[in-house]
């Protein structure tokens, strides 16, 4: 059926009305072109926003110590709940919890040679780097070994480093000794400001600070979870966790405060939901645009079929089966939509790739605080495949009604049609 003759018949028919074919095809090209551009823009926005979290694990929870709001079991409201090793042990005993990263905060003075500045010193575990997306520029981050040996090492941010080295001959702090609140630390790494843009931060092993300050207080605990994939799972886990910590510190499980529990997983699921909605919206707009092209093709096919009524009648008299006529008209429409659709798709992808590479060389679009808002506005192969499917479906849909009409007409009526 689909031999050389079949295709040559179709291409001959299209060639006979070149201008008409091109104008009709343009609507399809345009529709697909815009669909690709819109989808790329949507992707760019999504990539831009998610790239800010890219170095960060999304299945994380953060718990902060806080004051109670409700009186409970003889305790007055407003009591400050400071977490400690018991909370860490509780978390480590839960099967949903993967890694626990407690944080101890000690503010103070950072001194190197003649220079000094204030610094927020955080006692952390190595996993902190992944959870918070710490970007190490020079040297290394705190390691498991540092934890074990309670080494007096520190990683400071680039802002602190620049200030300490200003007007000195030194170019690096790695391996140098600095003093924080009078305690000496060896600098092992320099990192970028954290994702909140806080400046003047230093990171030392949790175990080291615990030993140095003889302090079990834990202001903040961050941990990662596993097996919690849906919002419902996470909400349930969060309620359960709050209840357990409340029991540990004897405050009301209904207390909105006491400790704050924040789930990045829930936030991230929410963010993804927003982008999925945007994506659906774009597809709806794109398809609606494409429909106008498809209506155009369908209209042209109707005119073509009308013009060819005589010819179709003759073909029927000579023994053409209805299926062969139906197929040839549907294929004609399919050929228009797919060829011009592909032209539109290739143009669209070409334009988005150019924009993407220009943006990359210009350093990307950002909001002025170093946060990207638009990154890599391109579409991937799955979208190309979906768009192809959309084209094929619309091509068949556009050709079917006119083809079916021409099949229904009796051959003698078709031949006598003027």
């Amino acid at each position, binding site marked *: 059926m689909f031999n050389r003759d079949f295709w040559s018949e179709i291409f001959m028919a299209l060639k006979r009305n070149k201008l008409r074919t091109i104008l009709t095809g343009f609507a399809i090209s345009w529709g697909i072109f815009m669909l690709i551009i819109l989808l790329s823009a949507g992707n760019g926005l999504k990539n831009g926003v998610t790239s800010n979290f890219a170095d960060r694990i999304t299945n994380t929870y953060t718990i902060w110590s806080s004051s109670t709001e409700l009186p409970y079991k003889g305790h007055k409201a407003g009591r400050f709940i400071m977490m400690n090793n018991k909370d860490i042990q509780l978390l480590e005993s839960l099967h949903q919890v993967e890694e626990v990263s407690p944080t101890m905060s000690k503010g103070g003075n950072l001194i190197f040679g003649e220079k000094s500045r204030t610094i927020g010193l955080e006692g952390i575990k190595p996993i902190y780097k992944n959870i918070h997306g710490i970007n190490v520029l020079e040297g290394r981050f705190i390691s498991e070994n540092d934890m074990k040996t309670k080494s007096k090492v520190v990683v400071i941010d680039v802002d602190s480093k620049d200030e300490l080295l200003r007007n000195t001959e030194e170019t690096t702090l790695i391996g140098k000794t600095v003093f924080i609140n009078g305690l000496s630390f060896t600098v092992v790494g320099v990192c970028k400001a954290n994702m909140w843009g806080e400046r003047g931060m230093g990171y030392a092993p949790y175990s080291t600070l615990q030993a140095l300050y003889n302090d079990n207080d834990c202001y903040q605990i961050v941990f990662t979870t596993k097996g919690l994939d849906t919002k419902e799972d996470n909400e349930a886990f969060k309620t359960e966790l709050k209840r357990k910590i409340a029991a540990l510190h004897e405050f009301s499980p209904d207390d909105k405060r006491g400790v704050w529990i924040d789930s990045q997983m829930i936030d991230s699921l929410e963010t993804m939901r927003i982008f999925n909605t945007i994506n659906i919206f774009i597809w709806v707009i794109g398809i609606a645009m494409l429909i106008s092209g498809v209506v155009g093709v369908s209209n042209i096919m109707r005119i073509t079929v009308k013009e060819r009524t005589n010819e179709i009648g003759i*073909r029927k008299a000579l023994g053409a089966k209805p299926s062969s006529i139906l197929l040839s008209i549907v294929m004609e429409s399919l050929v228009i939509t797919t060829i011009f659709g592909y032209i539109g798709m290739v143009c669209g992808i070409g334009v988005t790739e150019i924009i993407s590479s220009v943006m990359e060389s210009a350093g990307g679009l950002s909001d002025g605080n170093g946060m990207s808002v638009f990154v890599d506005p391109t579409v991937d192969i799955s979208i190309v495949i979906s768009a192809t499917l959309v084209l094929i479906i619309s091509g068949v849909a556009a050709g079917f009604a006119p083809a079916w009409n021409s099949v229904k007409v009796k051959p003698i009526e078709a031949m006598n049609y003027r």
Partner: protein
Amino acid sequence: MIKLENINKTYFGAQPLHVLKGINLNVEEGELVSIMGASGSGKSTLLNIIGILDNYDEGDYYLAGKLVKNLSENQAAEFRNKLIGFIFQSFNLIPFKTALENVALPLFYQGVNRKKRNMMAMEYLERFGLKDWADHYPNELSGGQKQRVSIARALVTSPKIILADEPTGALDSKTSAEVMQILREVNATGITMVIVTHERGIANLTRKIVHLKDGLIESIEENDPDKMDFTKEIK
């Protein structure tokens, strides 16, 4: 070969039109029959029913021993393709195809491959003296040439029956005579032929003349065309 029993046909328009009011007709294999009648007598409708280009309301029609009634479009297409060759007054050639492609078209629908198809089509064009015109489009051919192309197209599938609707209607008398001569020669090879005409001269060249009036057969006249000097008879 063709057996019609009480064929009735009504066109349901704004005013229902009872075109055929009970036609009974037998055409044997190899016969050369003409159907004559004034316009509106139903002769073209009758031919269309015989050619399965149109359906009928009542009666039975047997073609080569098979009942042709309520056929699916696919079956009808198969009958037309294998058994019947059509020749029309207005030639009904496809304008954007060459003479050769037009003749080869019925073979395309039989699934014959391109090479064999073109070879066979060329054979038939050659038989009617059109070999040099094979690559010409219909609008580059004279009326007589066009009709010869359409005769070649009708014959290329070696049908059992040729149905001709006013085959000389659009031709001058000299060309008409030539075309009729060809049709008689075709008939002489054993192919059944039914010609619809309103010209007495054409009908006189057939062996059996069916006179149709107001949707009924008025009379069937036996005729001996060999007695006629057909070049004179036409017009």
